[in-house]
């Protein structure tokens, strides 16, 4: 076993942040529900919309604020040397398991994509014309579905619909993200070699590439909505396309924010070659986001 002082596990004192964070989430969730209540509850619930918005934004503010306070405490603890290699190992395991759960989350949406593409769309097109409402529907992918009437809502596929082609913005985005994976690794090498310039330049480039990716994705979405007739409501293709790339983009956003925090911390000289879990955790997360993108690029855009 290690030395005596290495063997003291740090148990932090009580903290109010987690419970307030949960209350914030409660407010955010119920606020959201109230603000969309008219969708299903009829006009009679329209008066909930206003208060709902307030609750939602208030909750969001609480959540963001608490996250900053909480993580701030963690950073302070880290800087005052409370975490030794034993705690460090806990954080590493924790991050690995957390990323595993994120993988499971994305696999639900990939599962939906494969299911629709391989099973439900071909099924819908396979019935004899005299017994199905979808006589002229063909099983081709990308598909917007046959169109029709479910639960009293009419849905007509957009005839002007075009799927997103992989060779334009998506390809640029792939290159951006892959490069950013390289730059963050380069920055990590700098950190290990205690080469601060390399570290900060590397981190700066990574952040810049992340932001560039988000800008490109914004342009892509804009293009899809305005010129391609490709929206969230474009049947099977639209739903999987936007949910997969959207959740990915959301993760990139979170990742970029974390990268910015790490960049600032690097500039303040927070990390040492031996002790920099904060940096590594974010780097792992960034690589995970990268890998998900590769999956998206292949299965959503290319195939």
């Amino acid at each position, binding site marked *: 076993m290690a030395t005596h002082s290495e063997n003291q596990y740090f148990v932090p004192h009580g903290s109010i942040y987690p419970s307030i964070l949960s209350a914030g989430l409660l407010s955010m969730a119920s606020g959201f529900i109230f603000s969309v209540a008219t969708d*299903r*509850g*009829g006009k*009679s*619930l329209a008066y909930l919309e206003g208060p709902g918005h307030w609750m939602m934004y208030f909750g969001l503010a609480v959540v963001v604020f608490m996250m900053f306070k909480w993580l701030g405490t963690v950073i302070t603890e880290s800087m005052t040397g409370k975490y030794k290699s034993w705690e460090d190992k806990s954080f590493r395991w924790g991050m690995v398991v957390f990323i595993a759960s994120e993988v499971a989350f994305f696999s639900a949406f990939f599962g939906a994509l494969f299911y629709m593409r391989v099973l*439900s769309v071909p*099924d*819908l097109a396979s*019935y004899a014309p*005299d*017994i*199905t*409402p*979808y006589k002229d529907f063909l099983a081709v992918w990308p598909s917007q579905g046959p169109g*029709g*009437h*479910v*639960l*009293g*809502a*009419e849905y007509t596929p957009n005839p002007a619909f075009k799927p997103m082609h992989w060779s334009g913005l998506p390809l640029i985005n792939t290159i951006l993200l892959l490069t950013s994976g390289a730059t963050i690794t380069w920055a990590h090498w700098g950190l290990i070699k205690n080469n601060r310039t390399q570290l900060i330049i590397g981190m700066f480039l990574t952040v810049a590439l992340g932001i560039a990716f988000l800008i490109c994705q914004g342009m892509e979405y804009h293009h899809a909505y305005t010129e391609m007739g490709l929206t969230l409501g474009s049947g099977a293709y639209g739903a999987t396309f936007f949910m997969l790339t959207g959740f990915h983009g959301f993760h990139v956003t979170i990742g970029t924010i974390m990268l910015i925090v790490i960049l600032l911390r690097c500039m303040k000289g927070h990390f040492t070659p031996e002790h920099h879990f904060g940096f590594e955790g974010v780097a792992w997360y960034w690589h995970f986001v990268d890998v998900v993108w590769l999956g998206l690029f292949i299965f959503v855009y290319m195939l």
Partner: protein
Amino acid sequence: MQVFKKIGVGLAALLASLNVYADYSWNFPEPVTPMALDTLHVHNKFMIITAIIFFAVLAIMIYSIFAHRKSKGYKAVADKAPSTAVEIFWTLIPFAILLLIDFVIMGIPAYHSVVMMEDTRDQSNMVIKITGSQWRWQYEYLDGDAKGIKFVSNLVTTDDQLHNKAEKGEHYLLEVDNPLVLPVGEKVRILMTASDVLHNWWVPQFGSSRVAVPGFIRETWVQVEKAGTYRGQCKELCGKGHGYMPVVVNAVPMEEYKVWVAKKQEEQKAASEVKEMTKEDLVAQGKTVYEKNCAVCHQVTGAGLPPAFPALTGSKIATGPIFGADGKYLKDSHLDRLLNGKGVMPAWKATLNDTEIAAVITYERQALGNAATVDPIVQPTQVKAARE
């Protein structure tokens, strides 16, 4: 250990009752199709095997509980680590037995039943289509003499009976106005679909049950071998009327079936002719249609159950204009709502015929406390035109 005995007796009763020869109300009801017979056999076999396992294990446990207790002065005997050979033997033998039970004794008959159950097309002599909707079944005959016959089957148990205000009949909750009629001995291929949410068409004595999925078509089959009336229920939670969606099937000999088909064709032809009707006739017919189809949600009085189900009394839609200046019906008008539905409100265009729709609209506009002045009545011809 009184209670172990009690449980034992209870379970013995369970086992006995699961016997093929026992009273069927403790077990599957009497099977009347090859499928149901097969599943009953598989079920009985499974039950007996699992009961044997259960009682064998239980016996060992009970013996141990009585023999190896401290109060009797029994001293714990440590388990000796067995030699590897013995250990392998004792692992493999039970595994072999279990594999045999799972995949041979139980697995093989199950395999055959599954294959039989899914074989819907082989030698099937007729095809019907069943559509589930909230909360009624709709039947359509797709081939042969009966081609084109199409009707809706509604629960007829009255509101008073439901609320314990009237004597309940023998077939309480399992009675409908138009049962499905099938010939005895024919293999009938059934296509299943739904118009709103999931439903599940199930008659226990047929051993077939299939989920009805809106937009998709699922298949099953029945071949009733004994004339009679068979009753079942919708088996997939489908909203507040889920408990009120019975299935009733009349299995009749072929000759009788032919007679029924001829009569039904006749009736249907008569009903599909549209003619101008008087307001009184429309309201009178509308009342029956309304109480059968609409009162579940909008209530007999038209008061609805707000906020889920709007009141029709005083409703803007039920008293407002229907037809625009060009003679076409307006969006979100009374007729539009009936034909196409909205949200929870079903679309009726596939379920009700022109006369029925005209009648029920007129009824809603002129009764239930309403007296519409714009477009006071709607004629079947107008509905017919609106459909095109």
